[in-house]
């Protein structure tokens, strides 16, 4: 009887240890790989468009490729969801000729992260947009937009309607259309872009997501001698 009791206790302790350690969380077992079938996609994608020059793309320190304006967009499909450090470096023979772009971006398996950038000699003379998405943890299925710009106080409009000066948060967007965004500020070049995909099925996936648009406006240099 005592032996059985001890055995039961040992089994319970082992079960608790297994529950706490949960080694199966780290097992990478896929029935699809056993069957030799391609597993369903659980990776996220990054789209990079170079607006000028060739950009080398690094994700978490690893070079993933390079892209120029002609080959854009460059799509990287093997990015694990979560926070990843993305760095863009403009290819040049002169060290320090161009500034670099470095961001911690959030990747979701269902939604592409999109970067379109031109890297100039400094950040003020660089231009581009970064679009990422976060799953919203509110109960409603609204899709909202946050806009962050450099410089600040940029006039933003959505589908032709003025929505205020950046930085803006929590702007509800209607995913039934492509959501045209315009960012303008005196002394800087205007940025216009379509925020959402053209395919309505793709747009449906954005329900309940928070879209983050980060834009860097290009400072128009002062004309001298005019």
């Amino acid at each position, binding site marked *: 009887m005592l032996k059985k009791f001890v055995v039961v206790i040992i089994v319970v302790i082992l*079960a*608790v240890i*297994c*529950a*706490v350690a*949960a080694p199966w*969380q780290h097992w990478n077992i896929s029935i699809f790989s056993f069957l030799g079938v391609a597993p369903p996609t659980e990776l996220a994608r990054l789209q990079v468009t170079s607006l000028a020059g060739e950009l080398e793309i690094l994700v978490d320190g690893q070079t993933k490729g390079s892209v120029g304006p002609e080959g854009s967009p460059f799509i990287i499909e093997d990015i694990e969801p*979560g*926070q990843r*450090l993305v760095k863009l470096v403009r290819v040049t023979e002169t060290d320090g000729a161009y500034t*670099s772009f*470095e*961001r*911690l971006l*959030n990747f979701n398996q269902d939604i592409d992260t999109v970067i379109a950038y031109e890297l100039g000699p400094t950040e003020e003379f660089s231009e581009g947009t970064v679009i990422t998405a*976060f*799953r*919203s*943890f*509110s*109960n409603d299925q609204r899709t909202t937009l*946050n806009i*962050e710009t450099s410089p600040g106080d940029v006039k933003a409009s959505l589908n032709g309607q003025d929505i205020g000066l950046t930085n803006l*948060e929590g702007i509800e967007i209607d995913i039934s259309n492509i959501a045209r965004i315009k960012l303008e500020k005196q002394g800087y070049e205007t940025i216009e872009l379509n925020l959402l995909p053209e395919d309505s099925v793709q747009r449906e996936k954005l329900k309940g997501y928070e879209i983050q648009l980060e834009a860097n406006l290009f400072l128009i240099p002062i004309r001298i001698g005019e």
Partner: protein
Amino acid sequence: MNKVAQTKIKYSTAYPTSVVVGGLDRFGYEIAKSLTQQGGFVIIIDNLDKQLDFAGFAELNNVAFIDYLGIGDLIDSVRRLDYIFYLNHQSPLSQSELSSQDFLAASSYLNQLLNLAAEFEALFLLTNSIKYHRLSSIENVNPGLYQSQRWFSAVEFVRYSENLALEYKQAKGIEVKILRLGEIIGEAIELDKNTNIGKLVLQGISGEDLYLEEDGLNSEYYVHLLDAVYGVIKAQFTKGTEDIIYNVAYKEPYTELSLAYKLQELEPQAGNIKFLEDENPSVRLGQPKYLPAPNLERIGWRPKVEFEQALLQTIAFSKSLIKSKSAASYDEDEPVSLGSAEAVSYGPQGMKNGALSRLIEERKLNASSQRQKFNQSLASSELKKRKTSFGAKLRKGVVRRIDKIKKQLDFLQNVTLTEMGIYLLLVSIFMLVFFTILSPVVIISRDILLARANTVALNESRQSSNWEDVLGRSALLKNNLKSLEETLTGADILVSLTGQQQLRQEMLGFAQSYQFLADSISSYGSAMKALEDYQNEVRTEIVPRLTNSSVLSLGDSQQGTSGETQDTSVDQQDPGQLFATAQSNLDLAQRSFRNYQRLSEKLNPQIMPQFIQTLFGDINSSLNTLPDSLSQANFVISYLKLSSSDSHNQAIIITDELRPNSSAGEVVGVGLVSYSKGRITGVSLAPVQNIAFAATSLTDGENLEVTRLSGLQIDRVNPNVAEVSRYLLSDSNRDGFWGRVLTSTYNKSIDSIWYINSGSLTSLLAKYPDLQINNQVLTSTGYLQTISGLQAESLNSRNTLITNTFALVLEKLLGKDNSTPVGRFGIVKSEIDNGRMKLDNATSTKIGLDKSAPEVKIGIISVDPGRYVLRPVVAAGITNEIATNNSVFSTVTADFSGSSGARQAFICVDRTASDLSPAGLGIELYRVANLEQYNCVIILTSQVEKLGISYRKNMQASEYTQSIALASGVTLRYDVETKFSPGVDLGGIESLPQARVSGAGLFYTGETQGKFKFSVKVKEKNE
């Protein structure tokens, strides 16, 4: 009579090898014959001195004979052993009394063989007789019955042998079978054992009457020799039997009486049946019933010789045996061949007359000889440990474990299909519950607890500036949160069962927000590490030299002959790269923190369980310092970035807040710090009286302002720097003046100016409490009082003292120090935030300044020499009359009685104002200075304490904005009354807290420093 001799055996592993102990008799012969016919090799161990009644062994091949004494060799030499037959049913040891020594020897011998079986994993079969086993259940040994020595009865050894065999089975896992044989009849009957059947057969064949004991109802089990042999072989070779102990006998016992009747039938010579009277009749009542073991028929054995046939053979064999014993004569020299051995028989010694007697005598001799052999065997041989290879041991160990497991799972054989199904179902349900409910709950709890612990540790590491630990802890925290997120995402069943969808959403949000936090702190840590690397690389030794013309200079080890720094070490890391790394990481940190804040704001912590709220509540409050840390770090990096260029010259201007003037206070000290790629390449600091004006002459604007405000004649070519700076009211004039002074003094272009007010000494001396001048410790409060008390000293002494103090402070801020860059420059940022310091790019564009010129400037223009103004307070009454023609007539009356020590005070109004006139003052008490931007009215406070000025201004689009700027350090207590002329009314108030509106107008009072501004909208009054 035959004997056999010991054979020298060449052991091999080619044949299945069997050992038959006590097999040197007919029974053993039959077993050996059967085994050899099946291709086996048989080793018979017995007393080789035993007299044999038949010569069959000579016909057998592959049989070896070993005496008991040769057991040691067997153990040493045998390489294969598959079966052991221990024939104890006819052994003399089990049929007579044994001394304790004999018992020990016999048991030791049995022990050895059982060990051998365990060694070779051989199958062990033990035979005993049913008769003696039955006796063992009803017979008790009476110790002490036979003199002093303990004697064991025959049945005790039977019991002992079976128990020992079973113990070995239990302990060592050897396959053991125990067969209890009935009395052997047929050609192996032992007529000398005085058995019932033996006696009856002898009586019968002798023609005597058949005498039965008692009532003749004592029964016995019997088995034919060949059936017994067949049963033994079958039992040994049948594996996995349900039982271990079997009876080998005819199913039912036969009574004496039935035997007698049978004999009478089969043997014509047999006499009548007679009953012997028992002198000590046994009491049958109350005797325990003997439960026989299961019959071997259970495993398919069947006796093939009918009992009657067996009895006939017994009778025939008995007759031949008696005949041979009676006519026995031996040829002592005739060899008897036995296999490859030769044996020499010998004649019996001491044999009595009579066949039976002879048999009994032979038996006694055999028993005695066997006992002796056992005793010798015990003394001479020990079970030697065989050397087995590691592979063999491993294999044996594995097989043993598997067998053990198999035996433990034997119960499954009794489990029905339904029960198996139920067990599988229960196991499946348990696994489902475990993986879908229990495990997720435990994992979630684990991750929350770990996340909390890591967050606390992370925050502590951040606050103690342990950046290596920060990076490690943040990674751990992220792992915890990632695991939490994954577990929550996959816990659909748990969430469905508990209905806690909302809680899961909240916790997912919590997990993600804290991941951002972890990223933020991690990036912050990386940035700080880069700054620390910079610090370790480029820190410069700076030395205060308070008696020199420059009270601050580079350390001797870093000065070259030209006074410039030497490259004393090779740059291991490019400071520019370090700053870039720090800046980019700080950007990441700030973005991540914004994401954390944004997500956190959307969470509803009330939904989460109380223990989680408690766990993380205190952490959240401590994280509130992170934005300040990030902001400080941002400032530090911005500041240090200035120094990272190839060349950067930063001027230092130290002002005295206790001597306010039209700007930030009178300048007491001036200096320069030169940077190149992060290193300080030059430093200089001196009291202002030691600075010569080496620039070109004052500009017209500067001259105008100085002369008009001071009323003094200034030497434009070689002015007194301190005096000129005192009277420069406008920012542009002041900055331009100092820019030229510094450039000419240090012969370098000035890239930035660092304004430091003496008020910052409160916090600076608190941060560096060990500073001393002339062995006097400079405590923050006491020292400032000391400075304030120097009223009898000259201004120059005061300037020198303040400048020297800042030399000591700047040595800490800029020189080699163990504190971190944020620790050092963080205080600069807080002083800038508090207005006691300012960092400006030395260009026409000022960072952070309000470029719009205030309408009115009020302040103290100069201080009595040797006197200091403590906390100057100006009370101003302002009345505004708003007229219908969109113009405002304002009167500003300032009371300077609260600013003792002030020498000249002023009110300036911008030049767009018209109808300017001092209010209520005689013309001799004031003077007007018309500057480029302002018209200023100046009084001597020793003559007049109050100064008023009135003026008219036009409104812009029915809105009037009044702005008043105060000189640095001046506190303004204002009382504003705005009246509306008939026809106009108040349209709206902008940014005016605490304003009162009444029928008479708009009233607004308060106290401020710096700038004061209010706006009011006016509309036409509706009739």
